[in-house]
C-alpha cells in the first residue's frame, strides 16, 4: 500500500483544514465559485466528515460575476451542512463603480480588496481559508501556508515567519488575522486531475460551448448580460469558447476552444503553454502587481 502524489497533496490540505478548525476562534472559507473553490469545498468536507463544515463559506460578490457562476453558487448553498455568506461592497455599488466605468485597478481594489476587508471586519473572522496556489504567480510562490495579515489585512512579504514541517504557528495578535492556503502546493494540472478523479462538479463555463462574445482590443469578452455597452464597430459574435479561470465577466478573457471534457481541457492547456492568469485582465498591467495587491489586502 502506498500513497501517491495526489493523495499526498489531499492529505496535506486536509491537515491544514483541520489545523485551522482546531486553533482558530472564528474561521471562514473564501468561496469564489471557481474550480479551486470546488476543490477546496470537496477537501474540506473530507477533512471533517461525518461532521458538517465547522465554518461558513464567504463569497465576495461584485455584481458582475457570470450568471452561470451565480446559478452554480446558489445550488451549492442549498447542499446540506453548507452555510454561505455573500458580501457586496454596497457603498461602491451605490456609487456605480463598474468594470466599464472605472479602470480595472480601481474596480478590483474597491469591489474585491476593499469588499473582502469589509466582510472580514464585519464578521470578525480570524482565519480565512483560500484556494490560492503557489504556481499561480511569482509572489504567491513565496507565501507561507499560514500567512499573517496585520490589522489592515496587509501582507508583509519581508517579515514572514519561518514555516517548518507541518508544525504551523497559528498564533496571532488581537488585531491580526491569518490567510491559510490548503492548496499551496497544488498546480493547475493537479486541480484538474483531482476534479476528474473525484468527479467534482465545476461551473460549465470551463468547458467549450457556443457563447456570445465581442472582440475587444484582441481579447474575447463574453456578453453575459445587457449591461455590457458595445463600442463603435463592435459586434456580438457566436463563438465556441471556454474559460481557463473565472472572475467578473467583463474582465475575464475567453479562449476559442473545442475542449468540452476535462481530458480535452488539460490536453489543450498542456499544448497551449500559457499560464492561467493570462485570461485575468487585472494582472497584466505589470510584474509585481499581485504582490502589491496582496500588500493592500487582496486575497
Amino acid at each position: 500500500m502506498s500513497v501517491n502524489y495526489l493523495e499526498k497533496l489531499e492529505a496535506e490540505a486536509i491537515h491544514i483544514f483541520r489545523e485551522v478548525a482546531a486553533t482558530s476562534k472564528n474561521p471562514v472559507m473564501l468561496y469564489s465559485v471557481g474550480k479551486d473553490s470546488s476543490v477546496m469545498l470537496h477537501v474540506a468536507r473530507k477533512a471533517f466528515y461525518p461532521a458538517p463544515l465547522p465554518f461558513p463559506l464567504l463569497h465576495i460578490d461584485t455584481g458582475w460575476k457570470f450568471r452561470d457562476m451565480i446559478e452554480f453558487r446558489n445550488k451549492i448553498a442549498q447542499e446540506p451542512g453548507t452555510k454561505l455568506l455573500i458580501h457586496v461592497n454596497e457603498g461602491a455599488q451605490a456609487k456605480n463603480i463598474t468594470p466599464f466605468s472605472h479602470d480595472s485597478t480601481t474596480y478590483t481594489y474597491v469591489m474585491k480588496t476593499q469588499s473582502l476587508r469589509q466582510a472580514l471586519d464585519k464578521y470578525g473572522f480570524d482565519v480565512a481559508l483560500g484556494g490560492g496556489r503557489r504556481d499561480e504567480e511569482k509572489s504567491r510562490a513565496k507565501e507561507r501556508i499560514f500567512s499573517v495579515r496585520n490589522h489592515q489585512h496587509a501582507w508583509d512579504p519581508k517579515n514572514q515567519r519561518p514555516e517548518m514541517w507541518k508544525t504551523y504557528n497559528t498564533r496571532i495578535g488581537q488585531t491580526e488575522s491569518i490567510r491559510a492556503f490548503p492548496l499551496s502546493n497544488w498546480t493547475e494540472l493537479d486541480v484538474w486531475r483531482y476534479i476528474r478523479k473525484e468527479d467534482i462538479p465545476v461551473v460549465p463555463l470551463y468547458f467549450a460551448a457556443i457563447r456570445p462574445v465581442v472582440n475587444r482590443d484582441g481579447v474575447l469578452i463574453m456578453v453575459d448580460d445587457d449591461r455590457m455597452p458595445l463600442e463603435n464597430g463592435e459586434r456580438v459574435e457566436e463563438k465556441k469558447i471556454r474559460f481557463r479561470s473565472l472572475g467578473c465577466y467583463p474582465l475575464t478573457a475567453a479562449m476559442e476552444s473545442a475542449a468540452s471534457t476535462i481530458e480535452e481541457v488539460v490536453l489543450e492547456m498542456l499544448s497551449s503553454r500559457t499560464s492561467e492568469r493570462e485570461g485575468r485582465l487585472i494582472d497584466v498591467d505589470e510584474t509585481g502587481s499581485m504582490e502589491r495587491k496582496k500588500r493592500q489586502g487582496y486575497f
Partner: protein
Amino acid sequence: MQSDMPSRPIAPAQRFRDQENNSLLRLLTCGSVDDGKSTLIGRLLFDTQLIFHDHLAALRRDSAKHGTTGDEFDFALLLDGLEAEREQGITIDVAYRFFSTEKRRFIVADTPGHEEYTRNMATGASTADLAIVLLDSRKGLLPQTRRHSYIVSLLKVPHIVLAVNKMDLVSFDEKIFSEVTAEFQRFTSDLGFSSICSIPLSARFGDNIIHTSSNTPWYHGPSLLEHLESAPVKSLDITRPFRLPVQLVSRPTPEFRGYSGEVAGGSIAVGQPVVAAKSGRASKVKEICTYDASLSEAVEGQAVTLLLEDELDLSRGDMLVAPQGRPYVSDQFQAHIIWFDSDPMLPGRSYILKTENDTVDATITALRYQIDVNTQAHVASSILRMNDVAVCNVASQTPLVFDSYQDNRLTGNFILIDRLTNRTVGAGMINFALRRAENIHWQALDVNSQARASLLHQRPAVIWFTGLSGSGKSTIANVLEKLLHARGRHTYLLDGDNVRHGLCRDLGFTDEDRVENIRRVAEVAKLMADAGLIVLVAFISPFVAERRMARELIGNCDFVEVFVDTPFEECARRDPKGLYAKAKAGLLQNFTGIDSTYEVPDNPDLHFLTVDKTPEELALSIEEFLERRSG
C-alpha cells in the same frame, strides 16, 4: 544550448491519467550566493517545459531591465518573485516551484544563499527528501556550502547532491570536479546521509541537467534530472511503530467520537490495539473512517479519523500509538535548536513550544553547547543569536508526547514562539527525554498554603516593584514593609542588591543573567507566599517576558505589579549609589537605561509617577490597595 528545442514530448491525455499514480519528491536547492540556484531551477522548469509563454514574455522584459545575462534569459528573475528581491538581485525567501516528468511530481524549495536568511533555508529543508547543494566550480567549497550541508543533515534530509555548477567557466575540467567532490565526501561522510552524489553542471547552458553532456565525457553518472527521478523517496516503512497525533476530536453526534489526524508513522488496521500515549490507557480500533469509505487499514501519510472500542480521555495534543514501541512522554528533553530571531534566545525565558499538535509553555533550562556549523566543533555559549545552532535542555510545563527526531521527523520536531510578538523564533529537533523528569514527582503536603495563611490571619501576596535603578523601588518597599509590620502583617522584602550578595552571587548583568536572576527570585517569592507571607520584591526586572513569567509562576496567589516610574534624568540626578556616574564614564557595562534596555510595563496594577511624591504617600496607597482586596 540544448534547450531551444523542447526536449520532452508533451504528455497526452492518457499520460495525464497515468501520472495520477506518480510519486512525489520534495527537494530543496541551497548553496552560497551567486552559485546559480535560481538559474538551475529556472533551467529545470524551462527544459521540462513548464514555463508558460506569458511568463516568458514577462521574463524577456525583466531580463532587459534587471538581468545580468545580456540578451539571454536570466532564469533567476523567473524565481525571485518579490519586488525587493528583483531590485536587490538576491533571493530573500523560499520560493516553491513545481514540475513533473513522466515519472515523478516534484516540489522544489528554492532557498536563499545569504547567511542572514538561513531560517528560510531551514524552512525549505524541513520537508525535503533531497537537497541539491550548489557550488561554483571556480570557488570550491565555501563556508556557506558547509553550513547548508550541515543544516540539511541536521534536519535529516536523507539524500544530498552536490551540484558542481559553472563547469563551463573552468573548461569542464575533470580535475577540478574530482577534487571538490573528494573534499565534499570527506566533509559529509559522517553527517548521516543515506546517499551522497556529485554532478558536474552548467545550469546556464544546460549541461548534465536533463541529459548527460558531451562536454563531460569523463563523467559516467546520471544527469541531474535522471538522479532526481530515481532517488528513492523515503519508502513507506510500515514496520515503524504506529503514530497518530490527534489533531481534532470529532463529535458530530453523541454516539460518534472520532480522533482525526494524519498517520505520522507505521500503519494501523481495524481490530488492532492502540494506546493513548499521555494516559497509557489502551483500546482497540473499531473503525477507520474517511469520507470515501471505511478503511480496513491506514498507513503513514493518510489523513483519517479513528474510532475506538472504548471511551478514552483523549484530546488534541495527545497521540494514539502502538502498544509495543511507545513514544516518550516527558516534560524534559534534550534537543538541537536552530535560532531564527533577531532577539537572542535566553535560557530561563519562557517561550511557547508547539509540536505538530500540542502547545505548551517551555523554557530552555540549559544551553549545553553551541555548534560551530562550519567545523561542527562544540563551543561554550550562554545565549543563542540568529542562525546559531545549539544543543539544549528543554523543560515544558506539562508533559509532551514525542519521538527522537532521528526516528521520526514528524513526531520529533517543535517550534518555539515568542509570547509577546507570536513570531516563530526557533525550531527544535528532539534527541531524547531526560530521565530526571520521570524520577522527581511533586510531593503532596497536608499543610497547604491556605492553612498556613489562615494561621497568620492574612492573605498572602507578592508585590513586585519594577523600575530603573535609583527610581525609588527599595525606598518605597522599605516604607511599605514598616507600615505592614506595624499592622501585624508577616512580610519579607527581597531586595535586588541584597539577593545578589547571596542566592544570585554567581550572576552578572548580561541579558541572560538578568533572566535567570528574575527566575530565581520569582521562585523564592513563590515559596514565601506559599508559606503565607506578604512578599515585597524590589528588582529592576527590565524585561516584560520575565515579569510575566513571575506573575504566571506565582499563579493563584495575588500578584501586584508596581511600576515605579521615575524619569531616567531624575534617576541619574539622584544616583544614590553613584552607579549612573560610573556607567556614563564607561566603567560599568550592561547598565539599565544606558546600554541595557528597560521595557516599560504595558498594564501594571499600580503605576507611580514618583516626581513630587513622597515614599510614604506611595507606600500608603499600596497598603490601601492591599486592604481593598476582598476576603
